[in-house]
Structures are given as C-alpha cells and as structure tokens.
C-alpha cells in the first residue's frame, strides 16, 4: 500500500461507514455501531501505516477539483510532521472514544444515527488534517461543523439540544465568514491557497504576509476553537452525548482551530500573533472564572476546555506553535479522559449531571474515579503528568516573552486547579446525595478500557522523548528553541515554583472551601453576588440573545412588513388597483346613451382638428 493510498483510505473509510449506515443500517443500531467502530479501527491502522511510510519528507498528492478560468481548486494531501502528529492523535483518541461509545450509547434509540455522525465527523476531521490547501481545509472545516451540529442535536427531542445545535452551527458560521473571506483574498493575493506554495512564497517574499488576510483567516480559528467573542456555543454544546463532547468538543474539533493556526503560521504577521496571544490569555482566565459557577459536570469541563484552548492560543501567539501543538496533544489525552470519565459517571448515575447530586462515587465507581483523578491532576499540571510538560512550557514561554501574560496564565492555572478540585471533591468523595448517585455502578468494560488507556497516556503522554520518532518534530524543535532561549533556566525554576504552587493551592483551597461531598455551593451561599456575577459569564449570552431577539429579529420583521405592505401591497397592488380603478372609470364612460356617443365623435373630430392645426 502506497502512503497516498493509505491516506486516501484513511479519509474514505469513515465516509464509507457513514454512507453504509445511512443507507442500510438505519434501524440496526448494533450493526451500525460495530461498523463504525470497525471503520475507526481500520482508519487508525491506515493512518499509522501512512505515518510510518512518511519518513522525513511530507507526503504530498493533489488532484484537480474544479476550475473556472483562473480559479483552480485542487484537492490534495499534505502529510507533514504536524499533520502526522495530529492524525495520530485524532485517529487514536477517536478510536478510543468510538469504543467507549459502544457502551455509553448501547441503549440509545438512535444509535445508528449517532455512529453515522461519528463516522462523518472522523471523515471531516481527517480531511482538515490532511488538506493541503485552504479551500479544502474550509470544505472539511464546514463539514466538521455540520457533524458537530448533528451530534450536538442528537437528543433532538430536547429543547436544549435543539437550541444548542443551532447555536453552535450559526456561531461557527460567523467565524467561517471571516475565514471564507480570508481564503478568497488569499487566493488572489498569493495566486494559490496551497499551503506549501504559500509557505515558499512568504519565504521568498516576506512582504507578502498581509495582516488583513491573516486577520480574516483567524476568524475561522476563533469560531471553531471557541475564542472570544464566539465562545458561547461550546458550553451549550454539552447538550450532546458525552462521547461527542469528549471527541469533538474537547479533544479534536475545537483543537482544529489551533491546528489550523499552526498550519498557516507563516501567514501570520507579528501583530496578529500578539493579538492571538492576548486573546488566548484572556479566554484562559475568563473561562477559569466561569467554571466556578457551573454545577453541571460537563459544563465545568467545557469551560476548562475553553481555558485550555486559551493556553494553546497563547502559546501560539507567543511564537511557539510547537508548544501549542504539544499542549493540544496532551490536552486531548487528559481532556478526553476527563470527559469520558464524566460520561462514565453520567452513565452510572442515570444521566444525572449535577455534581451536587453525586458524591461518593469513588467507592461505587473506583476505576472511573481513579482515572478521573489522574485526569484532574494531569490537567492541573502536576509534576510528571502529561499536562505538566506542556503547560510548563507555555508558562515559560509566557514568562520569557511577556510577563503580564505569564502572570495571567499562572492565575489561570490556579483557577483550573480550584474548579477541578471543586468538581472532584464534591462529586467523587463524601456520601451520595441522590438516589441516582447511590445506585451508581462501575461502567462496562468497553467504557473502562478507553479510560484506562487514556489515563496511561495522560501520565506518560507528556514525555516527548517516549514518542515515536516520526511524530512531534515541531514540538521537539520548539521545546529545543525554548530551552536555548535567554533566561530559560531561571524562568524554568520560577515556573516550577509558581506552577506547582498554583495547583497545590488550588486543589487544597477547593478542598477546604467547598468541603468533601458538599451538598451545595458554598460560594453561592456566602457570596451570592459574586456567584451570580460568575454565572452571568460577562453576559455574553444575554447580549447575543438581546441582539437576536431585539435587533435582528425586529429588523427582519420590519423589513418583512415593508416588503409585504410597502412593496407588494402599496406599489405592486397599488398599481394594479390603479389600473382597476381606471378600468372602472373607463367602464362608466359607456353610458349607453347615443348622445354621449355622438359627443365622443365630436370630441374625436376636434382632436383630429387639433392635429391638423399643429401641421398648419
């Protein structure tokens, strides 16, 4: 099998699986899930074959797709180091989540639709990863948006799913609007949207890098990775099934924004990079605060995801795309673990998601609880776990480049530890606080095994030296660069202290502030105004809601009114009515009296006379 064949298979297997499910297995949930998981496994194998075959050079292949005049689109693969790293992560984590879903979705009525959706998602996601040009990235970018829409709306009879799926798609479209314009401008600016060619061009002509185009392009990232001000869809997206949250809204799709930035990093000038850094930092802190006011286990994790995406963006903005990618990968491991753990908890608690109604799960679901704890620690950046390496690198980079960002990100780390501590202490320790929690059982094997594997990865995934040779070259390069940066060792020392302090203080603080197995939120009790402020999340949803219902819908209604009454009613109908009235008037001229008709004759003669008069 040539590498290109392997890549093509990687891309098409999930599509075939989705098509097969859609056409033949709509009512056979069991078979559909098997097919989908098999497809995920196959594509995982194919992708590793391709990655293996890659060697040092990038795999490049391209076919013509469409051409009109000077506008030519091709479809092709660019499997370089970054793509290979991402592909390995996505296909592997994807497979684990597929397996997890086998257990989680077992009793779901619309199992086939779910697995079909997962397959479409895998197809689109791999498409983004492999794409060799911006247009193809955009195509699959939109397709992941669609599969995300479909999977968020999986529980379609619920109002939350209905609203959340719509919101996710539309908010993403806002980002895509900028992305689209960016692509269009880039095409005529560079004469191509091929990543390799554009990179060569910018190397040869640095002046070609254009801040405007870059600004448009990063809109796509802002939408997909849920950055300010388009972050509102991600927490709501938790209305989807938990494996979806794990796969799409934590590990892969939202990270695609970062991946995209890394792919086009050569197009971004310094100003835009700085903006991304600040944006990411702000989101990291903002989301950290928001998480404190959430009681839904998945929403807490969602804000955590937001916050971690902020870290990645900050790292990227600071000029270390490799470190951003590093954090992306480690984050995928532990966040997938956390989400799947949450899924396991939810599964065990019969779809109870409020952490204040759980409690005591450590005893009833020990594997889940322990793996979850590993995830928490990894996320907090406890020394030696996956999160430590990547987060530390980010903090160091921050400290070296911009002190304010460093301070804010450290604050973010502290906040992370705090809300994760709150989650863990309240949900897993103490006594059960509801029937559902007290009857919780450990999840079946299909769900536990992925947890264990991911836990393992969360522990060792950060040790870059253990990674296969072919993967992570950019990460190694950037880490290397960081190590050799001026003031590295001092900063490393500081970060070690501050970072560790952050998670220790955070976890312990949460332990003492909230207490083990608390029944309600202490913060809400003692400082309701603060809690309410945090819960309001800076009123983004309210502002958007206000805009939609009071501005956009009203404006639309006014325009609609004008269209119906002014244009159609007054002008069109009016002119028709005018003819009608004229018609009635003319009709009344036919009075039936001979004399009147004779007058017409006379009038006509006079009129003719007038014409004669004009000639004479």
């Amino acid at each position, binding site marked *: 099998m040539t590498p290109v064949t392997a890549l093509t298979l990687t891309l098409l297997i999930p599509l075939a699986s989705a098509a097969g499910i859609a056409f033949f297995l709509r009512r056979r949930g069991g078979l559909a899930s098997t097919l989908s998981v098999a497809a995920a496994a196959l594509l995982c194998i194919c992708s590793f074959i391709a990655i293996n075959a890659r060697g040092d050079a990038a795999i490049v292949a391209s076919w013509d797709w469409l051409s009109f005049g000077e506008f030519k689109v091709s479809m092709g693969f660019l499997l370089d180091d970054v793509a290979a790293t991402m592909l390995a992560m996505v296909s592997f984590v994807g497979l684990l989540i597929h397996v997890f879903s086998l257990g989680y979705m077992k009793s779901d009525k619309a199992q086939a639709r779910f697995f079909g959706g997962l397959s479409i998602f895998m197809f689109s996601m791999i498409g983004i990863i492999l794409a060799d040009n911006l247009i193809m990235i955009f195509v699959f970018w939109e397709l992941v948006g669609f599969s995300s829409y479909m999977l968020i709306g999986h529980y379609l009879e619920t109002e939350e799913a209905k609203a959340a799926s719509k919101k996710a798609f539309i908010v993403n479209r806002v980002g895509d609007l900028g992305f689209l314009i960016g692509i269009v401008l880039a095409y005529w600016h560079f004469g191509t949207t091929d990543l390799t060619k554009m990179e060569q061009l910018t190397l040869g002509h640095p002046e070609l890098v254009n801040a405007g185009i870059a600004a448009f392009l990063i809109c796509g990232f802002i939408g997909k990775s849920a950055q300010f001000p388009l972050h509102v869809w991600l927490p709501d997206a938790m209305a989807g099934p938990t494996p979806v949250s794990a796969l799409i809204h934590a590990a892969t799709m939202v990270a695609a924004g970062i991946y995209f930035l890394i792919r086009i990093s050569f197009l971004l000038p310094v100003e835009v990079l700085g903006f991304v850094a600040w944006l990411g930092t702000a989101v990291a802190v903002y989301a950290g605060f928001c998480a404190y006011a959430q009681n839904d286990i998945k929403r807490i994790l969602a804000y955590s995801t937001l916050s971690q995406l902020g870290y990645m963006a900050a790292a990227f903005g600071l000029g270390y795309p490799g470190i951003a990618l590093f954090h992306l990968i480690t984050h995928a491991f532990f966040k997938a673990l956390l989400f799947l753990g949450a899924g396991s908890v939810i599964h065990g608690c019969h779809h109870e998601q409020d952490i204040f109604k759980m409690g005591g799960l450590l005893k009833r679901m020990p594997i889940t609880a322990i793996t979850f704890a590993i995830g928490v620690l990894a996320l907090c950046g406890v020394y030696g776990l996956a999160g430590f390496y990547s987060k530390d690198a980010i903090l160091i980079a921050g400290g070296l480049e911009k002190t304010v960002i460093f301070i804010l990100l450290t604050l973010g780390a502290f906040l992370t530890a705090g809300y994760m501590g709150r989650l863990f202490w309240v949900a897993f320790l103490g006594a059960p606080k509801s029937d559902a929690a007290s009857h919780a059982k450990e999840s079946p094997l299909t769900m536990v095994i992925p947890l264990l594997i991911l836990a393992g990865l969360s522990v060792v995934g950060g040790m870059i030296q253990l990674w296969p040779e072919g993967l992570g070259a950019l990460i190694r390069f950037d880490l290397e660069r960081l190590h050799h940066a001026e003031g590295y060792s001092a900063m490393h020392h500081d970060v070690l202290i501050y970072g560790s302090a952050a998670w220790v203080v955070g976890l312990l603080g949460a332990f003492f502030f909230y207490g083990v197995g608390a029944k309600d939120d202490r913060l809400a009790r003692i400082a309701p105004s603060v809690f309410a402020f945090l819960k309001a999340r800076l009123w983004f949803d309210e502002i958007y809601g206000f805009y939609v219902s009071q501005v956009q819908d009203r404006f639309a209604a006014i325009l609609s009114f004008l269209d119906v009454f002014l244009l159609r009613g007054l002008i069109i109908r009016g002119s028709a009515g005018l003819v009608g009235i004229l*018609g009635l008037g003319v009709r009344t001229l036919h009075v039936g009296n001979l004399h009147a008709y004779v007058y017409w*004759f006379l009038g006509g003669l006079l009129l003719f006379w007038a*014409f004669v008069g004009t000639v004479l």
Partner: protein
Amino acid sequence: MNEGLADFLRGIAATNEWWYIMPEILLAVLALGLLVLELLSPAIRKHVPRVAMGGLGLILALLLMVDCSDCMGANGQSAFGGLLQSNEWSHLMRVFFVFSALMVSYLGGIFLAGRNLAQSEFYHLVILVAAAMMLLVQSNHFVMLFVALEMATVAFYVLVAYRRTSSLSLEAGIKYLILGALSSSILLFGIVLLYGAGGNPALPGASGDSLNFDALESFIALNPDNPVVLTGAMLVLAGICFKIGAVPFQIWVPDVYQGAPNPVTAYLAIASKAAGFMVLLSLLHGPFLALQDFLLPVLVFIAAASILFGNIAAVMQRNLKRLLGLSGIAHAGYLLIGVAASFTIEWVDNAVVFYLITYLLASFVVFLVLSLSGEGDDADLNIERYANFSREQPFLSGALTCGLGSLAGIPPMGGFVAKLLLFVAAFQAGLYGLLGVAVLGVVISVYYYFGWIRALYFNGSSVTALGEASNAPTLQNRFVLCALVVAIVVLGIFPAVVSLV
C-alpha cells in the same frame, strides 16, 4: 393544371374584365340563389344553410386553386377604369373574407337553430358582406370605396339587429345605424373635400379624375400642406377609425358587440376590422403617402390610446361580449402600430395581415365556444358563469384556452408571432414610446384573458354552472374547433404557411 386554368382565365380576362371579379360575382349569385331557394318549397328551405356553406366552401376551394388577381397580370394593374386595383394582398384577403363568411355561417347555423328567425336572409347578408368587403379592399377609387363600404355597412345594420325579437339586438342595431351613418357622412365629407381640392384647376397637379387614388396620390404629393386636403384626409381617417374601432371613435364597440347576435359580433370584430385595416393601408400607401408627417403622429396617438383604452376598460368588464369588444379595440391599437410603422418599414404589411389572420382564427375559436356554451340570451354571458366550466366541458375549455392564449399573444400560438413581428417593425421604425405602451397593454391584457381562463378552471362554487347547461359539442363542432386550434398552433410554429395560400 392550375397554371393551365390560370392561363385560360388570363386569356379571357385580357378581353373581359368581369373575370377579374369572378369570386365576387359568384358570391353574389350564391346570395341571390339562397333567396330563390327560400321561395321554393319548405322542404328545400331547410337545406339553405347547407347550400350556403357548401357554396362558400366551393368558392373558397376555387380561390385556393386559382389566384384570380393573377388573371389581371402583374400586381398593381387596375380594372374597370381604375375602380379596382389588385395588390399583393387582395388574393389573400379574398380568402380571408370568404373564410370568415364560411365561419360566420357556421356560427349562424348554431345561432339560428331553434330560434324563430329568418334563415336564408342571414346567409344572404353574410355572403353579400363578404363580397362587398372583397371589393372594398381592392377599391382604387373613392366611389368604389364608398359603395362597397356602404354595401357592407348597410348589410351589417340588418345583421346587428337581426334578432328582431330582442330589444337589445334592436338597440344595438339603432346605435350602430346612427353612429355608422354619422361616420359615413363624415367620411363622405372628407372625400368631398379631397375631391374638391384634387380637382381644383388652380392647384398644381389637379386632375379630372380626382376621386381616383392614383390621381389623388400624385396631387397630394404636390400639395401636402393644403388645409383642405389635410382636413379631408383627417375626416376620411376618422371614418375609417370608426370601422376599425380605434380611439376616439371606439365608443360604440362594446354596446353593439353586446347586442348583436353572436355570429354577427364575430363578423364585425374580424372581417369588418380587417377590411378597415386593409383600406387604411391602401390609403396610406396610396393617396395619403405624402401626408405622413401629419398622419404619423395621429396614428401613433390613436394606436397608443386604443391600446390603453381597450385594455384598461376591459380589465373591470365582466360581460364577455363587451370584453371581447374592448379587447378588440386594443387589438386595433396593436394593428395600428404596424400601420404607423408601414411608412418606413416595407414588410410590415405582411405582419399586419398575419396579425389579422391569427386574430381571425383565435376569435372564431372564442366565438364558437361562446356559441356552444349555454343557451338563452348570449348578450348576458359574463365571466362568472364560466366558473369551473372545464369540469363539465374540458374540450371546450381547452379550445377556449388556446384561443385566448393566442389573443393574449402567448407561444406557441400564432398571436405571439404576430405581436412579435409588429414589435420588431415598431422597433425598426423607431416607435419606442408606442412599443412601451404596447408592452404595458399586453401586460394589462393578461389580467382579463387569464381571468377568464382562471374562471374556466377554478374550482369555485358557482350558482349558475354554465358548464352543466351546455351540451357536449358534437363531433362536427369538435372537428371545427380542433382544426382552428391546430391552425393557430401551426401559425405559431411555422408562420410560413400563410405564404402558401
């Protein structure tokens, strides 16, 4: 074979001009023969319609076989001392009028069946009118023109008032009579002025035969600014406008159309209008050629006003015969576009004739369906009574739809090509404003034509379901309708068939 016959006739015609008007003579003989038949016995009397139609059919066949104008030799040659002159259209118009007479007789057969009215006189008059019109369009002399015109008009007075038991028909008759006589007087006065000016020895180009078109043409060419000439031309034009029902002499149209019996309405709408237009064309290309600076704005005005008046008045009209009358005014307006363009565009006469032919076919379809649908007084037919007509009478509805479609000018009907040709001509002649008015008129006309079509198919509840009252058309009627519709469609797709005649 035809050639041989034509040669033979040509040989005779060289010595005897009566051969030239053989069709007219045959028609007159037929008309008189009908009256004689009437006198014979009641057993024979009931064959009168068949004889009339058969005779007309024979004459039509004869006309299609032999082109009598050819007997005279080349076009443009005159006969009877310049009274008659053949032109390129005289043969086609002969066919046109005989065919209309045949169709009107057919309609008359339906109309007269079951009515206590004189039978043979109707056919007699119809045939005479046809003969008169045939002479009218060939006349090359004002005396001929007047006599032929009055012959047709006087016969029409009788025909309009033919339903002598109906006060509406009689009222229409008296209105047509008085207004017709008035217009004749005006026409005459105009002729007199032209005659007087054209014969005035003090003026250049005066001739002793100033009622002759050719003489007048050369005279007017020398005196285009003479006020008497202009006034005379204006009055003649007014008289003809009355015949074609153009604004501002259109006001009688709806009343007379409504009151007249159905076949007569059709005859008035089609043949009378066609004759008027052919006369107008021959006048404009003949005596009035030099007056085009004066006549063009008048014609443009009349055309625009007719189109607008006819269409706007028809929009709110519910009575179908009045509606057809008003739409006829609009059609006169469209035709006048062609007439106005004919000053500069050579081929537009063909377009006018083509328009007349499609108008003929479509109108006969509509009138035939009108005659076949329902009983009682056809003066009261209004659109509402056609509600849901298609359910009971799908065939008639289909035919009516085609006919109305052609009148509205919609492909693939002949009416579309006809309108298109006129528009092309108007464009070439630079009559842009008129073109705009015409487009507006077509758009407005869609309202009432489609209002009628909609009524046919609309599933509304109707108090008086006309469809149920009408009998299913007989095979014969179906055949005639089919033939007409096919002809309309063929004209729309392959307009060249006209030139085959």
